[in-house]
């Protein structure tokens, strides 16, 4: 009896903890907003998506105007996945385009909230920063640190993941997680008959930008009458992804695989290939290995993107702020295009590494492609 009570208590604690900290990742209003933004017209030059923005609301930054040379400080959540590696390269190359930037100080939090909070403290204490760019490791934990930087009088630019304060000059980000999920789900719904079976593969639970991708898609599948076979977490591991798809294949057919990120999409495709089964609809992302696999095998793919060019935009926002120019605010929403069959070929570049994210907006930069690991 004791054991049962103990087990129940442990179970209660586990589930209780899970529920108590679950923020709202299924917000119909935000879902509808992002759905509209996907097809909206953006302001700014169409051939330079990293300069485009939605809406007309601007911030006046005249009070931050400063003579160069500037010290641009950047507190980075981490360079711990290929997407961030590409993004960080976009950023360092953008810095080279601005002679007014005297020093670019980069501190890497290596994926730790605590380290990032300490990093920001150190940057503030150093007193050299003209502007602070923050790519937060997690939303809630970094909010006080960002508020502190604002209170110190520094212009702050936040990008990628957000914080829950509007004290920064602007928050640069593409349309968002719901948008990503919507693009992949719409493609599946259009290509799979009603009642079809969808396997949802996700990296890990609990990250806002990934949770919203899944919740948006899940609702749409339900509405369209598709059956979700399961939601599995791959940890971003190719071997695990392949095993999961193989196991599902053994139990029956799969009409589509929905992925919340593309890094393991090729492993999912290979599971079908190795089993001798026709590859169904498998969604991915804009990284080269998936785009090339999609072209070579000719399955029905789509690559929603979470464009890395936002790393360029963060620098541009910082530069415009220090020049006292107007900056889209409180949010600088960038376009978030999906790569479809029609435009597939123009994003494939076999000279680039397998996990180069094609939607980098970096082809016009002087050191492309070598700086990104490509060959001439």
């Amino acid at each position, binding site marked *: 009896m004791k054991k049962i009570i103990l087990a129940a208590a442990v179970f209660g604690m*586990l589930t209780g903890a*899970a529920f108590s900290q679950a923020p709202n990742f299924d917000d119909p209003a935000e879902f509808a907003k992002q759905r509209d933004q996907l097809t909206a017209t953006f302001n700014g030059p169409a051939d330079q998506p990293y300069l485009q923005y939605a809406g007309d609301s601007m911030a006046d930054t005249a009070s931050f105007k400063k003579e160069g040379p500037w010290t641009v400080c950047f507190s980075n959540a981490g*360079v*711990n*996945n*290929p997407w*961030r*590696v*590409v993004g960080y390269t976009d950023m360092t190359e953008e810095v080279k385009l601005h002679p007014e930037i005297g020093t670019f100080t980069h501190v890497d939090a290596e994926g730790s909230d605590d380290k990032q909070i300490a990093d920001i403290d150190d940057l503030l204490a150093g007193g050299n920063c003209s502007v602070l760019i923050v790519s937060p490791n997690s939303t809630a934990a970094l909010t006080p640190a960002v508020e502190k930087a604002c209170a110190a009088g520094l212009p702050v630019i936040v990008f990628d993941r957000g914080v829950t304060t509007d004290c920064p000059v602007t928050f640069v980000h593409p349309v968002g997680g719901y948008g990503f999920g919507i693009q992949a789900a719409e493609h599946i719904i259009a290509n799979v008959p009603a009642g079809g079976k969808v396997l949802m593969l996700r990296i890990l*639970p609990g990250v806002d930008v990934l949770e919203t991708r899944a919740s948006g898609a899940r609702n749409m599948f339900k509405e369209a009458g598709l059956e979700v076979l*399961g939601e*599995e*977490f791959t940890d*971003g*591991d*190719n*071997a695990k*992804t*392949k*095993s*999961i798809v*193989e*196991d599902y294949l*053994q*139990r029956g057919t799969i009409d589509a695989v929905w992925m919340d990120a593309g*890094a*393991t999409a*090729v*492993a999912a495709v*290979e599971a079908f290939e*190795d*089993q001798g089964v026709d590859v169904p609809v498998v969604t991915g992302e804009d990284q080269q*290995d998936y785009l090339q696999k999609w072209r070579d095998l000719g399955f029905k793919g789509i690559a929603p993107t979470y464009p890395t060019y936002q790393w360029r935009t963060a620098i541009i926002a910082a530069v415009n702020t220090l020049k006292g120019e107007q900056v889209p605010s409180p949010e600088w929403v960038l376009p978030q295009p999906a790569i479809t069959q029609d435009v597939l070929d123009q994003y494939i570049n076999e000279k680039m*590494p*397998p*996990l*180069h994210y094609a939607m980098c907006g970096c082809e016009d930069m002087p050191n492309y492609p070598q700086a990104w*690991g490509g060959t001439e």
Partner: protein
Amino acid sequence: MSAQSLPRPAAAKRSLPKINPVYVLVAALILAIIVMNPAFGEPTGYMNFLKRVTALAILSAGALYVIVSGGFDLSVGSIMTLTVIGSSMLASNDPNSTYWIIPLMLCIGAVIGLINGLVVSYLKVPSLIATLGMMITLNGVAFMWSGGAPRGYLPDTFRFFGRYNITDIPVITLLPVAVICLVVFGTILWWGMHRTNFGRMLHAVGDNQQAARLAGVPVERVRISAFVVSALTAVLAGVILGGRAGVSVDIGSGFELQAITAAVIGGAQLLGGRGSVPATIAGALALEAIFTLLNLLGLAQPVRLVVQGLILIGAVAFATYQRKRAGR
């Protein structure tokens, strides 16, 4: 009173076959999987399973050499990562490169194992720390080499070992190359551990280093050899896993602990002196079977982790209890 009437409890005990509980565990898990999913009994089902487990099985059998000698090798996962990253960087999409890349990687592995062994034997750094340092170093090297993202693909000739299936075979219809590798390397490792003088010395060193030294065992050389074997199998496991799954920057992370777990489930003693290659391979099968079974049950991920952890602790506790009762 004649001698024949003396009680003979030992004989009664011996009449029950002493079978390593890991084999029972594997059989039970596989049976449960087949009941849940009859398709597992088909060749594509169990061959896929074996293919999946090959990398871990070979790796654990190699790591067992170090465990039996009384040490730990935490660097094996990072050797796998280095193998996959390094191979993809060097291959530059040239299918002919495989023939020199794999031998080169084996050489690098041998050197790493040698360094591990030398540091442990002569600098007297505990193996846990020495190989932990090596793991961190190698992860750093792999990261520097790749710049944090894979920079190349593995050619199909390289992926042959982990990915390719030989088809149209009577009775079993298909035979993955990985399974052939498992049998070949499993046999070699079994032979080395259980049929050679080296294997006996390994057990002696792990059981009682002082006694082994007094008995004339070259303790240092034996320990160093164990680390070299472990590192070489890590390279092989890297080749097979990279072949199966493709390049990723943290492909080997976590494998060092899985290898130790597989060995312990197979009845190996963590402080050395005891361990069996076939039982360790069975331990690896059990680990993978638990994962597959829980997947089939359709439990949610958090519940699955809880159950997986409990089964692991239970299996090892049971094996230890059995051994104690048997007085071994």
